């Protein structure tokens, strides 16, 4: 039971801990070729 609670708490803490990685934008996508749908 304690392990389940711990997992839940870790899941909740995730966004705060990983924020520096989450806010770093990924490589920008290449612009779509003209005449194609994105």
């Amino acid at each position: 039971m304690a392990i389940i609670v711990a997992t839940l708490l870790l899941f909740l803490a995730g966004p705060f801990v990983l924020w520096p990685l989450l806010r770093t934008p990924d490589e920008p996508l290449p612009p779509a070729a003209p005449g194609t749908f994105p």
Partner: protein
Amino acid sequence: MILAYLGAGALLAGLVLGGFSAMLSFFAGWRQTTVFIQVGRRAFYAATVMTVLAAAVLELALLTHDFSLVYVTEHTDLSTPLALVAAGFYGGQEGSLLYWTLILGVLGTASLVAAGSLGDRVLAYATGILATILSFFLFVLAVVASPFELLSLTPPDGLGLNPVLRDGGMLIHPPVVLAGFAAFAIPFAFACAALLAGRADAAWIRHTRRFALLAWSLQTAGLLLGMWWAYHVLGWGGYWGWDPVENVALMPWLATTAYLHSSQVQERRGRLRTWNLGLVILAFLLVVFGTFIVRSGVVPSVHTFAISAIGPWFLAFLFACLVFSVALVAIRSGTSSEGDGRAVPVASREGAFVLQNLLLIGVIAVVMWGTVLPLVSGMLGAERVVGAPYYERAAGPLFAALLALLAIGPLLPWRHAGRATVRALRWPAAGAAITLVVLLVLGVRSWSALIGLPLAAGAASTAISEFGRALLRRPQVLVRRRRRYGAYLAHMGLVVVVAGIAASHVWQQEKDVTLQPGGSAAVGGYTLTYAGAEQRDLGDHTEYVAAMRFGDQTLEPARATYAGLGGQALTHVAISTTPAADLYVVLAATNEDGSATFRIFVNPLVAWIWAGGAVIIVGVVLGNVGETSPMPELARRRSPVTLPA
């Protein structure tokens, strides 16, 4: 039961986050990856939040009398007053470890938040070290000694707090002294981090100064509160018994005192770098050593927690800290240059600090050997124990030399002393000489009084003359250089403490008397009359209270019996305090013929110890409010010294 799972889950989550923070921070510091340094730091903050959550859950379980938890059942009961139920949080092994961890997490977080200017690498390594320490404690809490262990059957009531702990002192002494120990992990972490990052300048000292001062102030207050508590509760007429647990609290305080003085030499003169690192490491190792001694039960003491499984873990942690620190200093500090390479001149402020440091380390050695002697001699065959005479004989001369330095040191200038210094010494010399003559005229023949009190008077004269000089010439300097004058005030407080200790030690009077109601006894100029006794029912215990009259006052020493705890009995001391002396009355026994046996002490100047302690803390606080660096202009001018990474 739900609370127990939430608490245990928070500890486990904290352990995972702490371990993750430690590994990532060391890696990020090594690779200098900014984003991972930030993630590592946030993981430490999150581990702290988990620790706060676990602590809140334990406190809630205590206050709601959740007897499904072993810890709540063993340390509280329904009749315990609510404040003491709340204090049960740190009243047992597991809870006090959680408290330690909580303080470490909170102060560690504060130190990391405020450390932006130290650079990414120092920050990363400091996070790694703090997270490693935090993880160790969370591991012990989650795996070895959990405060959230459940009982298979929930009892209707608990066993209650140990009667000795059912006192107002319980609300303040343990949390203060434990916080003082935990706080010293901060300077340790930043000192090691600076070494790892190759930064040999005084930046880490400036950053951690507040934490070192906080740790020192808490340790000072904790020691004095412990003395006050022992004096009021234990009923043996004294306040310091050289008990192993008192000793292991004194040793980190001595090392921290040494560090707070020698760190000034590095801040001002850029010298003693390795020495300061060594002192910080020594102080932290002594904290861990003390925690091991208190919690393992290897040395017999009135303070120790029950023998438990955590002793070997703490021994392993102590060993790991020792190996890590020594290896770090040996490998990294060799590459730094010590100031201008010349030896520290003896007749100078820095020389006085070095000498003071050596004397304090001497006292640590004396106390350490006295403390571990039963352990070491036991291993060699015949267990030997030393008492107060050993400590007084061995440490007494060192304390006397420290008092002499307290009188002379503050008058010595940096670099070297000249003729003006010799002139300035006339004040402490006059103060000491006058006190010595007065004592001799009064017929005092005790060596400890004839040496200790004049030296204390000399130290007081130094501080007073410095204050007087400032007031006569430029009073505004008292505020502008408040760190210096705050330190003088703390020195004054220490002198008052020393006077209290010396007087109560040398001139204590003690008498055992058995009196019928109406009978009188005279001790040290006080005449006391036994007026009779009565029994009082006070909820969780009954008290047999004797009334002792002297003058228009009535003292009520008592013996308390806790029926719910198998009839455990406890003495309640009655004390009448004046600035000159304490009248201290203990009800030793009540007899069948209606008489009562009392032990009566007259303890001179004990109140000075508590008052002096308050002055020390006030001096430290006033001296450091809004103070960042002793000489900001110097700190700015001096460029940081970097070592090859």
